[in-house]
């Protein structure tokens, strides 16, 4: 054998070890968590808080990437189309469902559906509260509703965007009570809050976490909550149901993986969600933000997602009908 052949064999031998590194232990590198909504919101907070704790349990870090666009559709689509190898995960949330339903109502084929995702688990399930500026003449929810009914199309509410988690609850109220209230959408919760505090709109449905500091600072007052039962931190606030109105809304945040992700990886991730949501650091962040951790396993979440799908479908169809009138 001459030198050339030896050299060739040597090079081939060098390549062998890399061929043997096929079977990697998951995870072998950092995982990307896609947040389809803009930075700074509830999803972002929960996603980043989650990611902060992951390395303790998984050995590899999780990095949150905002992939915004079209009220969350772009990021959701990215997750749906991502390679199902467990290295790209996404955040799921209730308004995402609304995006899908809306496409169907408009007569288009939705670019992604709930079937494109494998549910990993739920972090929180929060209900918003009905807020008014501190100096508002409305002292009780009953008073507010009577006033709104007596003066149709006079008052307005702010939201963080069309069909956002702050828009849908108000629509649920409007549709159920037959109110004529004007909707002023803003780009995100921040501007929606500012408009409310400044008295430019008369009410808004926002979430307990972001609302609490402003209530404590006497900038806003809360008249009712959209939950099934009274909220922690809001024990004196009646729910709509208590007051006799059949109004309910909740908004969940959880984690999903693209369809086709291998079962062992899915199991590992489902366990991870359970571990992280009981981690004191994560819980502390969520609670300091005024929210409550409400872990639910994949099956429960998937079922709840289905129920929510139906509820939102009814709501959005009614909204569409009202629009056409």
């Amino acid at each position, binding site marked *: 054998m001459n030198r050339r052949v030896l050299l060739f064999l040597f090079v081939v031998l060098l390549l062998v070890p890399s061929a043997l590194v096929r079977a990697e232990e998951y995870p072998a590198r950092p995982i990307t968590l896609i947040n389809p909504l803009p930075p700074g919101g509830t999803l972002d907070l929960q996603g980043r808080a989650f990611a902060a704790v992951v390395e303790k349990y998984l050995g590899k870090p999780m990095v949150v990437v905002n992939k915004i666009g079209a009220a969350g559709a*772009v990021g959701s689509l990215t997750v749906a189309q991502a390679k199902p190898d467990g290295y790209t995960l996404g955040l799921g949330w209730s308004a995402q469902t609304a995006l899908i339903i*809306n496409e169907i109502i408009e007569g288009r084929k939705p670019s992604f559906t709930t079937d494109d995702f494998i549910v990993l688990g739920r972090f929180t399930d929060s209900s918003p509260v009905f807020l008014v500026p501190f100096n508002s003449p409305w002292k009780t929810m009953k008073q507010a509703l009577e006033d709104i009914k007596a003066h149709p199309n006079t008052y307005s509410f702010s939201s963080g965007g069309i069909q956002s988690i702050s828009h849908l609850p108000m629509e649920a109220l409007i549709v159920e009570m037959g109110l004529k209230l004007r909707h*002023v959408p*803003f780009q995100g919760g*921040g501007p929606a809050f*500012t408009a409310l505090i400044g008295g430019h709109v008369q009410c808004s449905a926002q979430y307990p976490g972001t609302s609490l*500091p402003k209530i404590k*600072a006497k900038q806003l007052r809360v008249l009712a909550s959209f939950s099934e039962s009274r909220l922690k931190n809001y024990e004196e606030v009646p729910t709509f149901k208590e007051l006799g109105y059949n109004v309910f809304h909740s908004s969940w945040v959880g984690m999903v993986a693209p369809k086709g992700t291998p079962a062992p990886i899915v199991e590992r991730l489902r366990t991870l969600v359970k571990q992280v949501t009981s981690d004191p650091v994560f819980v502390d962040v969520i609670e300091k933000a005024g929210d409550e951790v409400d872990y639910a396993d994949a099956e429960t979440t998937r079922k709840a997602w289905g129920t929510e799908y139906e509820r939102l479908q009814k709501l959005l169809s009614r909204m569409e009908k009202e629009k056409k009138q």
Partner: protein
Amino acid sequence: MIDAFIGMGQGFLIALTPQNLYYCFIGCLFGTIVGVLPGIGPLAGISLLLPATFGMPPVSALIMLAGIYYGAMYGGSTTSILMNIPGEAASVVTCIDGYQMARKGRAGAALFISAWGSFIGGNLSVLGIALLAPALADFAVKFGPAEMFAIMVLAMMLVGYVGSGSVLKTMCMVVLGLFLGTIGMDTMTGYLRMTYGVKELADGIGFIPVAMGLFGIAEILSSTQDTLVREVLKPKLRELLPNREELRRSLGPICRGSVLGFFIGLLPGAAHIIAGFASYALEKKLAVRPEEFGSGRIEGVAGPETANNAATGGAMIPFLSLGIPSGPATAVMMIALLIHGIKPGPLLIQENPEVFWGVIASMYIGNVVLLILNLPLVGLFVNLLRIPFRLLFPIILTICLIGVYSVNASPAELWIMLISGLVGFVLRRFQFDVAPLILALIIGPMMELAFRQSLMMSGGSFTVFFGSPISVTLILLSVLLFLGSLVRPLLAARSKKTHH
């Protein structure tokens, strides 16, 4: 007032610990790098370093992240001046005259004045925050959609001042910018406008790819028209520094820019960018020979650079005093606070005064750190210009591509940038000034949204725009500006006639 001084004192004690000084430095350094690299803005930098702050005490974390935020403001001007590429959204205005100064060999002076202007603007705004934070927070809340619309109208009036060249051409650019601004999802109805089914356009045509294309790429393309060998000046130290005349002429713009920038920074939204443009327009209006703007006037660099750093300070106020983020970068900083167990909000100053004042004091220190960082770098950066252009262009092109891609990882934005570059090149050949286009692209959508929100609130009645003293004042100002610009040429023509 006394409370403010006590608070500041407490803040300095916290900010001056070796640990926090170190974090401040890291933040500023990282921020400068992030700002210099075109496309990547402070948001990306803050998001990247956020996980690193988890083990740190809350004050330190916020000091570091805030350092990134205003470090980026400093760094953004560097590429604007040297390569006509806006390193950061707010630095677009600096490209206009800053780059021309560089072409005349005054790059050093431009960078130097820009650093100093940023320093002074930043410091004055910190002082403003410390003294006025609570009052200003109330002020910020009074800005509803009607007031925002009034401001946008005023801003649009300024667009005319930013453009050089014929009125007709400026108008063409403005209309084109307004049109491009309509593309995307409409906030009020959720409908997709002019996207033709292209999903990536659902969020509209991003301002960053367009700006980088119209300025940077177009510049590269235009330069290929010149001979590829450009005279490379070896800068002497004297040339690195501004001469006395330039220093003198910068003083006014810097003062005005600070005040203007600070107040504009209080407004939510793209305040920094508007601050820069507003300052530019103001300086042009006040200048003796406004036609020279656009060909390298130091005022066109001093004013805007000061204004956008002052705006950074202003932008921190809604965040620190109200807990309402004024943009994505401050929103992520808010999350950082939450993750550290601090509740941002109106009670922050009471519940966690050490965080509130510590951050404010660190902003002052950050300004000093950044000045020290940036001044020696001036020489280094100017030497970059000595790289032969045939090598520099591909490097710039690569940096632009990476920069734009790093923001949203969207291939569509790369295409937008390249197409804008071609369009910008053509526009340049025909002597259209692209700055009004960018301004219209930013202001148009904001103006439209505010307009429709206002009308929605009032049920279609236009009286909503005259409902508050703020909006009335602003609208009156706009009308006056408009009338003034009509009357001036009329008066000038008349005086010419009487002279004959």
